[in-house]
């Protein structure tokens, strides 16, 4: 067994475990922590694929910025622990089977797609595009400049909207 193989499975198991913990945890902070666990393991998986820039951005944006705000808000509101409810009938008879169906569908699709083939046959079996920061920024600021700028303006509008909503009445 090669080292990347071991790291991949360790991170994959951690990511799935984090996802399950997120739902099962009763304290909001524990849920937030499990999301961070998922993000960190995903970042390591990106590193394994050679996408260093995306791995770093994954940590900076999700684990370092968004989840910090979540934790901050949970601390500020001092949210109590959640209450358990009984499993609803719709979830038991429709939701769980549908969830399994979705899982099977995803697995089926992965096995028959080039992305899945590259995972199954190991690294190097499929041509990976250049993933360096330089190549990525060339794409972003040359080929996809318009969508990139449009997204920035969209975010700016959203920020302004939040400011107006949060402003005190004069």
């Amino acid at each position, binding site marked *: 067994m090669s*080292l990347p193989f071991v790291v991949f499975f360790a991170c994959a198991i951690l990511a799935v475990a984090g996802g399950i913990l997120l739902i099962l945890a009763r304290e909001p902070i*524990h849920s937030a922590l499990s999301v961070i666990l998922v993000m960190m393991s995903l970042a390591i998986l990106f590193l394994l694929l050679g996408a260093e820039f995306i791995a770093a951005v994954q*940590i*900076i944006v999700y*684990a370092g*910025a968004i989840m*910090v705000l979540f*934790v901050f808000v949970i*601390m500020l509101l001092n949210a109590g622990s959640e209450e358990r409810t009984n499993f609803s009938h719709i979830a038991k008879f429709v939701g769980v089977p549908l969830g399994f169906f979705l899982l099977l569908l995803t697995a089926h699709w992965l096995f028959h797609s080039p992305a899945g083939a590259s995972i199954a046959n190991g690294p190097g079996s499929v041509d990976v595009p250049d993933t360096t*920061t330089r190549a990525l920024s060339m794409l972003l600021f040359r080929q996809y400049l318009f969508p990139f700028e449009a997204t920035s303006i969209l975010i700016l509008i959203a920020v302004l909207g939040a400011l107006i909503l949060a402003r005190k009445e004069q």
Partner: protein
Amino acid sequence: MEFISQHPVLVVSIVKIAVLLFIVMTALAYLTWFERKVVAHIQSRWGPYFVGAHGLLQPLADGVKFLFKEDMTPPASDKFVYILAPFLALSLALTTIALIPFGPLTGPNLTLLGQPIFVVSNLNIGLLFLFAITSMGVYGVALAGWSSNSKYPLLGGLRSSAQMISYEVSLTISVVGVILLAGSLGFNDIIEGQKGYWLHVIPRWHFIPQIVGFFCYLTAAIAETNRIPFDLPEAETELVAGFHTEYSSFKFAMFFMAEYANMITVSCLATILFFGGWLSPFPDSWTWQNYLPGAGLVALAIYCAINTVVEMRGFFHRLQMGIVTALAGGIGLLCLIPPVAAVVQGPFWFTTKILVFIFFYVWLRGTLPRFRYDQLMSFGWKLLLPVSLANLVITAFVLLFLRRG
């Protein structure tokens, strides 16, 4: 043996991590001694003096004390998060040091099994990765404040998260100017790009064109590490000890070490980005500079020898100063041998520059009062952020015109 030849990267990395961890842990312990000594002299006191000669064994005594104190966990705390927080703070603070190059990566006697010896991991997105790890650093503080389930830690944790989020923005933007000048995110490329001299003597460090960015970085870095004058999260007059009020024994020591490790990291980053990392400030043609590290240590040994005879009283203090003299003299003489002198050049300049920054930190602590909380926030958002943004825009425009024309 076969394993070593099959996995040179893994084996060499483990050796480098072990050595670096030992050096950094010792440095952390002696930074507390250094800080207490410098602050004491600023305030016309002697500082630690009795545990060992000049208090040199004080860090050891502190360490033993931390280990043997009763480790208390508040009954109302969230046990798991309470224990996780100090580990998170310290491990994240120590991880960043793996990315720092302490000397040139290529050259004679600078590689082991084909791997550079002066850096644990030379990533070509080093800077970005360092920011990724430091951006996680806020969790240690925030979770410690929350999990203690007590008023003062919660207030300290809240203040600290708000402060770290606010100043992280300015910190990141203030170094983008350097990235533009260097054209790379890798630490080694950034340092190599600062080689050369203006008018044959002034080193081409980014400090000169990016002086505004440097001061923005320095201010934001002090706020990020929660040091005076930005140490509101642990303002003892208002919050007892802030986020680590409920921590005792070794968990408290871990927060303490994390703070000093963060200080080392931001000093390393300032050195790399603005002061040429391991580059010498003197032109290469001045060959006598190769003997500076050895000469400096020998001078220290002579000073210690005089001190042993003139000032020290009692057998044990004289013995300790004698050992320090022998160590400094021995290493100094070793560094005067030409091949060794060439190897220690890089780490010598790097360490010297870091020590200057650490001294600056301690100097600030000894002289400045603390900010008020609203002053802190308005300073960060209304002054520091616009200035660093303006610096970025101006740098980008100047570079655009210079490269076009």
